[in-house]
């Protein structure tokens, strides 16, 4: 069963139609790679899923609940509950600079007050271990390299125990040398069957890890499918042109 279904998603900024009726599904345990040229609407689409952008029309269901139906959003309380099933990792990490790494992980769960502090602290230690940053727990983000920051951001998202993780170009702001460590953490998550949607320019990662690839251009999904097939045998000229440009450079 689909954990995310998007139908007829439309979004404009003023006169500029950025998403022109998008339809797609994501199944549980899918790793979806979203690729496409700059300005094609990838970020806008991803951000719409977690309600960082308000869409103009269309329906988005998450895990069977409707976040927005034909352009009408759910009630505030439901909205919050629905989006809480997702975590998001940003291109520029968006760590809280005034909190230590450990505090970055723990602040949101503590604010939510659903669990004992003990439990939260234990999980933050586990997750820091998982992303290999146990020894940086007490450091402030400013001290970390880009790759380390992004791993903290992933751990922070995982603290809220999401069923789905969204990534918006998680390695684009990193030195090429540092992308590897972040991609490794993402591969591990894929192995653990985390459902993920990843906007990326990393064709290698898309080919290797993704179970599904979506190619967007100009506010539309041009084609989608199994990544191997899409990369080696694109059906449309637009896809072909884009892949050629991306792979050659």
């Amino acid at each position: 069963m689909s954990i995310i279904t998007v139908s007829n998603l439309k979004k404009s900024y003023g006169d500029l139609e950025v998403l022109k009726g998008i339809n797609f599904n994501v199944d549980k345990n899918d790793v979806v790679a979203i690729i496409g040229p700059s300005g094609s609407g990838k970020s806008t689409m991803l951000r719409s899923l977690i309600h960082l952008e308000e869409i103009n029309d269309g329906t988005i269901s998450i895990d069977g609940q409707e976040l927005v139906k034909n352009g009408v959003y759910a009630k505030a309380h439901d909205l919050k509950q629905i989006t809480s099933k997702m975590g998001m990792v940003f291109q520029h990490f968006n760590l809280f600079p005034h909190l230590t790494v450990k505090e970055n992980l723990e602040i949101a769960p503590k604010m939510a007050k659903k669990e004992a502090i003990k439990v939260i602290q234990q999980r933050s230690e586990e997750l820091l271990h998982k992303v290999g940053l146990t020894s940086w727990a007490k450091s402030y983000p400013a001290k970390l390299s880009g790759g380390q920051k992004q791993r903290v951001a992933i751990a922070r998202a995982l603290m809220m125990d999401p069923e789905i993780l969204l990534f918006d170009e998680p390695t684009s702001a990193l030195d090429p040398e540092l992308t590897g460590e972040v991609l490794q953490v993402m591969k591990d998550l894929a192995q653990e069957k985390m459902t993920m949607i990843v906007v990326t320019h990393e064709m290698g990662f898309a080919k290797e890890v993704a179970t599904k690839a979506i190619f967007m251009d100009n506010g539309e999904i041009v084609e989608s499918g199994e990544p191997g097939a899409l990369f080696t045998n694109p059906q449309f000229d637009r896809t072909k042109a884009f892949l050629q440009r991306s792979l050659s450079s």
Partner: protein
Amino acid sequence: MSFDYILSVLKPMLEGAQVTILLFLIAIVISIPFGFLLTLASRSNIRMISWMAQGYIYIMRGTPLLLQLLFICFGLPMLPVVGEYLVLDRFVAACLGFILNYAAYFAEIFRGGLLSIDKGQYEASQVLGMNRWQTLTRIIIPQMFRVALPAVANESVTLVKDTALLYAVAVPELLHFAQTAVNRDFTILPFFLAAIIYLLMTLILSLFFKFLERRFKFE
């Protein structure tokens, strides 16, 4: 210039400095939160409130503090009908003037601080499920204060120096006593002493803020 003479001149000046320090503390403690409220008001979604806050800030920053002090101390009591209820004690009037004026400056500083905070901070807070109040108090305000700290330090030093205006509303302060002594004894020495006292006060204040800045460096 005997040591005794210096002491005798210094004594009233130090008493005046106490007034300066007291006014400084009162003004800073009240005008910082008031300034922050003004910042929030000026960013309010309600047009009226945001206009009023911005107009207030504009007027306070566009006219001399000295005029504002004279206005509050001598102008208000002259208003028809309500005037007689607006006769404030002169020290209270001075505090009020400084608070009203500095709140506007702090509001501008905090506005800049808020603008400097990346949109990503709000977005990260939102996707982590924090509500607006939590985001404001736990994420935004601490960062805003950190960004604003150097400007706040600057403004505080200016506040110390602006206490020299107190004499216009007849609150006897440091500089007034220095001036009295200069005129009485026909020597420039009290001005030097006053300069040293002001430098000491501003130095200590700067060091305190330097300490705060280092303390909240987040590195």
